């Protein structure tokens, strides 16, 4: 079960011709796929397109009605390989994943797919995880399009444009026998807007039809001599076909006056930012009626030489707004202008920064400088020589005050105690080389845990520790991998590799029942019943199947003592080969989402329910915060006591506590302090419980009163 349910929203996918669709970008993409008669869809979750997978997953009934096959692929490589269904058959297929990490994984399949080419339209929707909010290395998908020669669409970030790009993407793919990538940026995926829908189409040929009528064509298979012909075909046939399609169908757009002495060329995704900058410079209204001609590249690869050269022909200077580096588009344009002997001055990453996100301010500065240099006369006085002092109020002292707030483990996260235990083991055995992986567990690298030295890719945590296999060394490496990464790639690349190479290190598989970091999608080892997927495949079985001998399963990660003892055993045992610990507890975010409504219902209907919560005795707490250095839980915080005798704030647990138990377990295992208590509220207790409770409390009350009679009592007010 995914973190967010789209059960209600997917009903919008049934909208027909002429009706208005309102919703998020990703939902619009799904609707567009159905309108295009897509035959099969797949992908791998990951921000910013996780919700696209969730939408598809929640829309399975609708997909089935239309005869569309949907798969939650095992990896991006699997997803892209699935597009092989469009090689011989005229079936439209679409896959989606996070880029560039997903595209890296997919690139083997992508290169093969691109070589042989496709018959049915093949669309790859990549969520370009770049700039603010991104969680990965900052690279561009553009390079993949160039190296495999697949076409790259980058539509303007509004719903009608995205939907149009999906439609045109399929057609472009079919017209040029080439897979097409469409990139959507983070905020574009979550932009709310509307478009006019069309009727959904059943695929003219379904995957079932294809299965019953198999076809093959040796010419499409990547093996010499066909592969040599593919390369020529790409240049001689597919490329010109793509250029023709893009030109004739006016995929790229022109805005503003037809003529002008300056112009701006931008990626589709940059368009709104460009318009806003022009608007702030007094050169556009809010509808994008601009005084500066803009050439918008909704198709960023291939580029259309004559379109661009025409655009430049009457201009003194043209600014290319291209986010990310290297500046492939600008380089290509430079080459075109040079070869054509054109005189227009090409500006780009000299006015705009070479690297980093093109935020509103960056665009305003860059475009402003460009216009001031090449067409100052179109600017009003205020914009021509802006008052430098009209800057935002500088507050340099705030940099010292405002704490950084990077993402971290959620309240009650079952991974927290794993790292608390690791920190305790290191206190005992000294520091170790720790290899981290991709997933929520990577938050261990931040305070308060500060564990982990590298992260090399999804499922590659243990693989990235493979060099550290020295029998003479007195210490072993520890590596982490999540259940998501384990099934994605880790089983073979990490576990299999460790077994085969007799790696002596310790591998901790963090199993939280979901691909949790991407939004709680089910995977093979998920414990949930999933009507369309096969779940409940234990990780330990897979690990043993790979040949690991030393395997320990921990069924409650909150048992910090056990976790610590198991880690210690793994680090010190004389047994050879990889030591694998599978630490399993359900992702708290998902568990709460699942259990909370059930619990509320049970309480209302009079069932006996125990609801745990933790607290801190503020007079026992001395304010040393040792507990927080082993936790970092959002619900465990500090508060000041209004007591002049106390210097430091004490620990405090707020109402968001879910009673996971980490606080108590850590206090116990690390011998911290006795100020934590766990309070279990019994809702709807039985009659006997009530009776015994009254009895006990009478005794306790008597004892308390007895003592309080013998001493001075300072009431708490």
């Amino acid at each position, binding site marked *: 079960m995914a973190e967010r349910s789209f059960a209600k929203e997917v009903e919008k996918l049934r909208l027909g011709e002429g009706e208005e669709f309102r919703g998020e970008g990703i939902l619009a993409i799904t609707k567009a796929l159905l309108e295009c008669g897509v035959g099969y869809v797949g992908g791998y979750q990951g921000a910013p397109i996780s919700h696209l997978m969730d939408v598809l997953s929640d829309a399975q009934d609708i997909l089935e009605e239309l005869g569309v096959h949907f798969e939650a692929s095992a990896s991006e490589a699997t997803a892209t390989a699935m597009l092989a269904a469009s090689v011989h058959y005229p079936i439209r297929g679409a896959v989606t994943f996070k880029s560039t990490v997903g595209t890296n994984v997919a690139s083997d399949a992508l290169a093969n797919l691109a070589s042989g080419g496709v018959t049915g339209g093949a669309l790859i929707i990549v969520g370009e995880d770049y700039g603010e909010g991104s969680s990965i290395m900052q690279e561009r998908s553009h390079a993949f399009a160039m190296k495999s020669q697949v076409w790259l669409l980058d539509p303007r970030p509004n719903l009608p444009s995205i939907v149009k790009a999906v439609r045109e993407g399929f057609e472009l793919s079919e017209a040029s026998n080439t897979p097409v990538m469409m990139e959507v940026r983070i905020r574009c995926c979550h932009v709310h807007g509307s478009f006019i829908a069309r009727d959904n189409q059943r695929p003219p040929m379904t995957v079932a039809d294809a299965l019953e009528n198999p076809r093959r064509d040796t010419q499409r298979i990547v093996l010499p001599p066909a592969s040599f012909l593919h390369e020529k075909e790409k240049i001689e046939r597919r490329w010109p076909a793509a250029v023709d399609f893009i030109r004739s169908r006016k995929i790229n757009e022109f805005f503003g006056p037809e003529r002008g002495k300056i112009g701006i060329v931008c990626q589709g995704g940059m368009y709104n930012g460009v318009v806003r900058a022009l608007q702030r410079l007094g050169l556009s209204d809010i509808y994008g009626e601009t005084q500066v001609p803009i050439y918008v590249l909704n198709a960023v690869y291939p580029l259309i030489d004559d379109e661009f050269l025409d655009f430049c022909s009457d201009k003194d200077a043209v600014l290319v707004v291209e986010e990310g580096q290297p500046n492939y588009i600008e380089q290509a344009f430079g080459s075109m202008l040079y070869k054509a002997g054109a005189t227009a001055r090409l500006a780009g990453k000299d006015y705009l920064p070479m690297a980093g996100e093109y935020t*509103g301010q960056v665009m305003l500065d860059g475009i402003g400088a460009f216009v001031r240099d090449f067409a100052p006369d179109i600017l009003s006085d205020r914009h021509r020589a802006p008052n430098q002092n009209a800057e935002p*109020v500088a*507050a340099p002292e705030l940099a010292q005050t405002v704490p950084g707030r990077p993402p971290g483990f959620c309240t009650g996260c079952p991974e927290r105690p794993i790292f608390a235990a690791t920190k305790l083991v290191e206190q005992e055995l000294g520091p170790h080389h720790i290899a981290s992986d991709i997933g929520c567990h990577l938050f261990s690298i931040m305070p308060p845990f500060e564990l982990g030295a590298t992260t090399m890719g999804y499922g590659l945590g243990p693989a990235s520790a493979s060099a550290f296999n020295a029998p003479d060394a007195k210490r072993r490496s520890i590596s982490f991998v999540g259940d998501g990464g384990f099934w994605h790639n880790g089983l073979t690349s990490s576990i299999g590799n460790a077994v085969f190479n007799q790696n002596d290190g310790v591998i901790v598989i963090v199993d939280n029942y979901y691909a949790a970091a991407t939004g709680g999608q089910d995977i093979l080892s998920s414990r949930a019943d999933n009507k369309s997927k096969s779940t409940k495949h234990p990780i330990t079985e897979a690990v043993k199947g790979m040949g690991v001998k030393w395997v320990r399963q921990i069924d409650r990660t909150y048992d910090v003592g056990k976790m610590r003892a198991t880690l210690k055993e793994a680090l010190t045992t004389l047994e050879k080969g990889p030591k694998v610990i599978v630490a399993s507890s359900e992702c708290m975010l998902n568990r709460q989402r699942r259990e909370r409504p059930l619990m509320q219902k049970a309480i209302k209907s009079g069932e006996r329910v125990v609801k745990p919560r933790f607290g801190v005795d503020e007079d026992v707490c001395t304010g040393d915060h040792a507990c927080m250095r082993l936790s970092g839980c959002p619900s465990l915080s500090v508060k000041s006591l209004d007591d002049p005798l106390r210097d430091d704030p004490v620990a405090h647990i707020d109402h968001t506590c879910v009673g996971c138990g980490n606080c*108590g377990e850590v206090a116990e295992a690390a011998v911290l302090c*006795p100020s934590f208590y766990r309070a279990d509220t019994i809702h709807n207790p039985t009659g006997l419980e009530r009776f015994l409770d009254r009895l006990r409390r009478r005794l306790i009350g008597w004892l308390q009163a007895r003592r309080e009679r013998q001493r001075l009592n300072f009431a708490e007010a």
Partner: protein
Amino acid sequence: MNAPLVPHPKIDQTERVTSIAVLAVGGQGGGVLTDWITDVAERNGYRAQSTSVAGVAQRTGATIYYIEMCPDRGRQPVFALSPSQGDVDILIAAELMEAGRAIMRGFVTPERTTLIASSHRIAAVSEKIAPGDGRGSSQEVRAAALKAAKAFISFDMERIAVEAGSVISASLFGALAGSGVLPFPRESFEETIRASGRGVEASLRAFGKAFDRAQTGPQTDDVPLGSGHQPESEDISLRPFASRISGSPKLMAGWQRLVARVDALPEPVREMARLGLRKVVDFQDVAYGGEYLDRLAQAVNRDRESKGFAFSVAAAKYLANTMCYDDVIRVADLKTRSARSSRVRREVGVADDAVLQVTEYFHPRIEEVCGSLPAGLGRWIEARPGLARWLDGRINKGRRIRTDSALGFSLLWLIGGLRRWRRSMLRHRVETAHLEQWFDLALSRLDTDYGLAVEILNCRRLIKGYSDTHARGLSKYDRVLSALPMIEGRADAADWLRRLREAALKDEKGEMLEGALKTVASFAPAAS
């Protein structure tokens, strides 16, 4: 071809987009607020667009939601997807430091931006893990906000939400409506909440309260808060010091005699002495209070009025803290009081008749056991490491005690009752010896370097916590005071000791302290 352009006839710069950025901490429900704002705009004949960043970036980290809107004139405007510096009309911060972050990022400008910020704090991890008080100053953010914003509306919206049984998105929405910046009637905001369908009544309550607070004008919480202090959203522990004291006539008479002694102290010392006295009497008994005042008298008698009795005030504070060391008896005593039972119920939020099970987490070690034995016996065991180790093996493990059960409660109650024998126990002897050493050290410097003497007293702050943390505190205390021979005699000796102490409170291991000690060593004369 290069003729200057004439302004495009269609360009109309009078229409403007209204931009709203919401800065929140992941998990605060910023998405709901964003949907509401979009909805209320559309309800009032506006076109609106919202964007957000979902995914891992949001997990408890700082995150931004962004909304743009303008009156619908039948054409689709080009909305931006993220906020720009100097281009934000309304900035909503769901937590005070997020307001600070917004100001830092340039999203708050005096010509345009109405800043609506909840004044409550959610401490970041870096603020929580310092052994001392690592929290950022709310005052600085507030001061910057007053400078940077066109209007600044700030009050504890989290508390309003919690009190209404709702979440902060509702009170933020109320503050937005109440600010009057958006030209929409209150009813349309309320309609939006009703249409959302979940927890409507509670949301409307929170909305209404925040609306009213915001309506009273662009003002902020008027209660000045100490540096690093925060308004509490729940379980406020503000209690008057003049609390009720009760006990048998005999005990009360003893107490009154002590109070009379406090009243005779110089005025600046009285307040702290009264609090200290209360603490030590609560810890042990009336006689212990007498001991406390005897010690304090040593300080007062040699103190100087010209210095404002600073030494005595510090002595009143740290003598009390030192005399109330955290031993097993103290913990058992605190956990078995009737006031504690009611506090737990209040914090958990259950009625007095609810069935509540309370589990305490203990991890006793041989050290605690020896500390609670008669001094002779305790020392005898400690002198035999083999025996101590063997005993530790039997004792040292986590023990959970249910204080709602008759047995568990009685056990702690009995341990708490050992109080009357405390003075003869090993721990008391050890603590008292350490106290005297420390206090004598401070007194001995009183005539030569008054400031240094005060700072020596203040170093007691370093010793706190239990077991390892306590040991680490002691070691930090020793390391800080080890600098004494190096700095003594310098005019700025007091300053240096304070700096060393502050460094010791910055991190757990004392790395900052090591650095500071090296600095001290570098300028100290080699001979000393």
